[in-house]
């Protein structure tokens, strides 16, 4: 399957997964396109669409927690920052994704 087709397939699938979790794709279309492209590339390399912004540790249990969409594994953290780590998804009520800082777990909720 060529990359563009796979990107569309991932978009379709992810939307259905994140919607019941209270998330949506970021309104930043350019960011969505770039991140999906990276995920298609990672899927081609590893067989799995890992998060493009978190480390693959070669530890299966840990690595399964960064398979996109990884929201269920980081629910408390992502709810606190209203976005997932890479920013592909944001809370449904978010209009301006640029207003959401990329805070690590121990800093989330301070602001």
């Amino acid at each position, binding site marked *: 399957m060529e990359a563009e087709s796979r990107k569309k397939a991932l978009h379709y699938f992810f939307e259905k997964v994140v919607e019941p979790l209270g998330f949506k794709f970021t309104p930043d279309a350019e*960011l969505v396109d*770039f*991140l999906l492209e*990276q995920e298609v*590339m*990672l899927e081609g390399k590893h067989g799995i669409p890992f*998060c*493009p*912004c*978190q*480390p*693959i*540790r070669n530890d299966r249990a840990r690595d399964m927690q960064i398979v996109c969409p990884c929201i269920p594994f*980081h629910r408390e*953290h992502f709810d606190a920052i209203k976005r997932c*780590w*890479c*920013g592909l998804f944001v809370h449904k009520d978010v209009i301006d994704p640029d207003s959401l*800082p*990329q*805070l*690590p*777990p*121990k*800093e989330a909720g301070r602001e």
Partner: protein
Amino acid sequence: MKKVTLYTLSTCPWCRKAKKFFADRSIPFTYIDYDLADETIQRRILQELDAAGATGFPFAKIGDEVISGYQPGRYASALGS
């Protein structure tokens, strides 16, 4: 001037923004793309991330300060600007 080191991923747009932040200000920095590094370096980077409570990239070291995530305001503060 404080030493700036970035740990990044070649696939991460926020890592690109972090590199651009320092490049645009002509601030010297070094970086390692975790995904392109060998296993020994990857292990060392993971140890540093875990010690700092960081879960993802970018990860910046500015002098003695470590900053997880793309946080331009904190980069500027750490640089003393």
